[in-house]
């Protein structure tokens, strides 16, 4: 399974118009690479206010990602 499961939540899910994608892991080294792939943006920096989780733990955009991982993008949280 050479894929990465990508999840979107809240306003970012709405913006994408879907809750998840499955992308090919080839050429992906970190969470930012995943973001560029799914958002179609090639600039280095991700938009402000996008939070990242890799395998359900908070991570920076440069956190390593490999096949089989789950990567999530979401706006600041508002629970409680």
């Amino acid at each position, binding site marked *: 399974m050479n894929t990465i499961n990508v*999840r979107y*939540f*809240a*306003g970012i*899910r709405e913006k994408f118009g879907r809750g998840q994608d499955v992308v090919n892991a080839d050429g992906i080294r970190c969470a930012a690479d995943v973001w560029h792939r799914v958002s179609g943006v090639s600039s280095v920096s991700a938009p402000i206010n996008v939070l990242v*989780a890799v395998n*359900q*733990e*908070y991570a920076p955009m440069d956190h390593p990602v490999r096949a089989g991982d789950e990567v*999530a993008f*979401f*706006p*600041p*949280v*508002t*629970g*409680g």
Partner: protein
Amino acid sequence: MVRVQRHPFDPWAEIAAHERQYPQWAGKYGATAVFVGSLRDFNQGHTVAAMTLEHYAGMTEKHLDKVSREAIARWEILDPLVIHRYGPLAPADPIVLVAVWSAHRDGAFLACRYIIDELKTRAPFWKHEETDIGRRWVVPE
């Protein structure tokens, strides 16, 4: 104990049931601190008719478990009870419950406050509210 659930809960009945479930705790703690967050019918100047809580299933439980363990490591407390809802909510509904049992009130208060603060700033929940001016995502304060 952490529970993330769709169905409504009665925080006071949950606490009472939890204490009954652990009769061996009776007499061991001298302080119980509790926080309940509930849905107000107004927010930032507008009437709130309803709210939907989106969450990241799996990550929420992991995060709340981690925060509970941190609190146990840091203060002299028993296993906290944390319940959080997701899905559709009506005004006045309890959203979150944090209950902490400790030998002393300092530990109980500090651990309870720590858990709810960490939950609010880090647990992956997102509030989408229906107000008199339309639907909107709640923005952190």
